[in-house]
């Protein structure tokens, strides 16, 4: 017997204390949110946001995401371990809406995976080769590195990375994945976050510029920093003073972190005791991400500078010797340190972080597919689990094919920008916020029996938090549809916005079509969601 909280008696029973530690859930959310990749985005895109204040941008993004993090935490505590927003939305709104949100989210994850695979090629392996050449290892390394930034280099490298990710599950299953992941996250934290912060703290901008010139000299260009500045000026660069407008527009980049920082749904305990892992870990991860960026942004700005990053975004890379394209922050950190070892640690950590995200995403989407199949919306084959590897191999294969298509799109076309998927990924969150707002009215008994049965100024607490989340997610969607850099602005990318809505609508149509097909097969899909009388 144990007594887990004042006034409670618990008995010996399985599963009683299976609640994830808050610390673990915090890190899970932080690592899933791709702080490193987002940081790379921002500086690669700095030229598109003249006068933006990065600190203010990410704080606004965090502010928009915080109510959603609280809402997800509350909903997860209310309905732990039941499939995330698929369940929230199905119960509060309609099964077709729950499915559409989950399908849409999975679709856009399949799209965004092409960003990861091509960044692995260009800013991982490509940067590695260029770093070796930049520190004097020979021109062969430059050719090697530059190949990864070619169309075929991006596609082949990305596809191989995806196949290796899938092979992890096919050959070693979840156990092998977890072993690899444990090591990879340590290297990611070291290379993509800690090393850049320390290099930024200990190195001056002057030293960086001198090292940059030395580095580029190995590519046959002398005084590269001056040539970079000249090329950027020709392209229209001018130092910009603070602009609130571009600062708000730049929120769309940092939304890559703060819109999706509550993925620790799995850390649910069986009994809603006083311990509130989710309430601490989801909003807590927002705070932790802010702290990480509060370290990264000033130190990076100190050593590289906003203007230098903007120049890299505007200038012709051949003008300063970087023929394959502008360098991302891990390569610049290596240059700033004047050390190939530091450079390789930073590039390696960044690349490993992206590589780890691939199997995580394959797994996440395959779990969604499993849930659809479980409810008879999709063929039962999708829920097949290989007995040897204990992995849903068919679902993983489907996601693998979609991911390779996405890699091809990002390698050979410019249809999508790096953050185009954000609008599609945010729409389901917005719908979840509506579902959370309505839940106290749609599932009265569930909410009244929960720790969130209270009211604020006469409004159910879930409704109040849900309303703030609607404003947060809605605000983020408004920025994404306003900012031309997002790739989904109404003014410049109206077809992409229509695609986002179209995917959602198509998913709803798929649900109704599946229901009709199953009915012909003698299966009543509605039974899967039908509430049994509790009287």
């Amino acid at each position, binding site marked *: *017997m144990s007594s887990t909280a004042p*006034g*409670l008696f618990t008995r010996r029973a*399985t599963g009683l204390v*299976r609640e994830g530690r808050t610390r673990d859930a915090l890190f*899970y959310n932080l690592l899933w949110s791709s702080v490193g990749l987002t940081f790379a985005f921002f500086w690669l895109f700095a030229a598109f946001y003249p006068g933006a204040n990065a600190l203010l941008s990410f704080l606004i993004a965090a502010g928009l995401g915080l109510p959603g993090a609280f809402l997800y935490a509350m909903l997860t505590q209310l309905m732990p371990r039941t499939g995330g927003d698929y369940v929230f939305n199905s119960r509060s709104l309609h099964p077709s809406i729950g499915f559409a949100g989950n399908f849409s989210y999975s679709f856009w994850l399949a799209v965004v995976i092409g960003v990861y695979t091509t960044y692995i090629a260009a800013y991982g392996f490509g940067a590695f080769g260029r770093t070796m050449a930049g520190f004097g290892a020979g021109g062969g390394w430059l050719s090697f590195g530059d190949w990864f930034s070619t169309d075929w280099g991006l596609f082949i490298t990305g596809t191989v990375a995806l196949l290796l990710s899938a092979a992890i599950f096919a050959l070693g299953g*979840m156990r092998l994945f977890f072993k690899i992941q*444990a090591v990879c996250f340590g290297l990611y934290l070291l290379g993509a976050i800690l090393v850049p912060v320390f290099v930024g703290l200990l190195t001056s901008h002057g030293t960086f510029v001198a090292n940059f010139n030395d580095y580029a000299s190995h590519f046959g260009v002398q005084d590269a920093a001056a040539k970079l500045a000249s090329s950027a000026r020709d392209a229209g660069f001018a130092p910009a003073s603070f602009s609130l407008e571009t600062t708000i527009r730049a929120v769309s980049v940092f939304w890559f972190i703060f819109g999706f920082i509550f993925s620790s749904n799995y*850390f649910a305990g069986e009994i809603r005791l006083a311990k509130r892992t989710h309430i601490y870990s989801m909003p807590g991860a927002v705070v932790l991400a802010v702290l990480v960026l509060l370290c990264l942004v000033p130190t990076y700005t100190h050593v590289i500078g906003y203007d230098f990053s903007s120049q890299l975004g505007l200038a012709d890379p051949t003008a300063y010797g970087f023929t394959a394209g502008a360098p991302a922050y891990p390569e610049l950190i290596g240059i700033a340190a004047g050390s190939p070892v530091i450079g390789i640690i930073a590039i390696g950590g960044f690349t490993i972080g992206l590589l780890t995200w691939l199997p995580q995403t394959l797994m996440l989407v395959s779990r969604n597919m499993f849930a659809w199949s479980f409810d008879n919306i999709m063929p039962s084959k999708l829920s097949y689990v290989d007995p040897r590897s204990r992995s849903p191999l068919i679902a993983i294969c489907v996601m693998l094919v979609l991911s390779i298509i996405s890699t091809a799109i990002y390698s050979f076309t410019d249809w999508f920008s790096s953050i185009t998927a954000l609008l599609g990924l945010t729409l389901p969150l917005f719908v979840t916020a509506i579902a959370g707002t309505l839940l106290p009215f749609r599932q009265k008994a569930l909410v009244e029996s929960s720790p969130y049965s209270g009211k604020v100024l006469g409004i159910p607490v879930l409704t109040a938090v849900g309303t703030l989340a609607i404003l947060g997610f809605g605000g983020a969607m408004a920025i994404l549809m306003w900012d031309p850099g997002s790739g989904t602005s109404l003014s410049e990318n109206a077809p992409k916005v229509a695609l986002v809505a179209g995917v959602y609508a198509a998913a709803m149509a798929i649900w109704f079509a599946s229901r009709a097909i199953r009915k012909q097969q003698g299966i009543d899909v509605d039974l899967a969601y039908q509430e049994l009388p*509790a009287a």
Partner: protein
Amino acid sequence: MGLFKRSNDKGNGGSGSASAVRLYYASDIHGSAVLWRKFLNAASAYKAEVLVMGGDVTGKVVVPLVERDDGFHVDLFGQRSVVSGEALEEMEHKIRNNGMYPHRMSGEELERVAALSEEEREGWFADVMRTTFDGWLALADDRLDPATRCFVMPGNDDPAGVDRAIEEAVKVEACDGRIVRFGDYTMISLGYANRTPFDSPRELTEEDLLARVVAMAEEVGDMTRCIFNLHVPPYESSLDSAPALDENLAVVMSGSAPKMIGVGSTAVREAIERFQPLLSLHGHVHESPGAEHIGRTLSINPGSDYHTGRISGCLIQLRGDSVRHQFVTG
């Protein structure tokens, strides 16, 4: 053993005919009064002729309502409150719907229970749970249609008194450790689990589990229309994945995520592989719902989300030697 509690064949034909039975299976409701009522209502809602509850019917937490001068003091979800009158009944309702047991007691009784040894307190728990469970069985007697067969067995988390309560019920039938029949089908049941880190009330070694299942299966003989109703799922299947736990019963992390391991029974797997029944039904591992074929046997675990007020179950259509299933969450 041959312990047929009732021989209630419904005359749906002999062994060669294509008789049909619609069965609803759920498990692991862990003291949730809402889920018990939904389980009983599933018979009419899903037009199921047979209901099977696969174990772990009792809860894990008693919430004391301590009587003081100003009302009953209660601590729920970390929030302390004082309630009386209607609010007291509402609070008790809220506690029950969360799968916990409200228990009115004096300050002296609270101190007495707090001072009990572990074994003594398990006994006190059993008494509290038995009172509630008796009420559940009375509700079943009141609700169930006479034509509906309703089998309930305890699971590894259920204390000893649960068996006796089921035995004494009128319409609910005991099946644990027995062979029962409905239509053309035979079902063997076992609520015990293999060893867990929690030292729950009904655990056996793998050897003992295998011996019990084998004894019943050998007595049945023909497996073509036999159902194994075994609380614990087979080891190394898609039905037995749960987070690994450390010595403090905390989830073991691997990288950024919980380390998942198989916690099912090797004995159950061996029995299924050896006897190849038509169907096997399992609970126990809440977070691993699914269906999987082990040879010709369809093995099912509907999982459990008992704390959400929704019952995870599976509708099973038995027709001759074939079986179709559909997961339902009610």
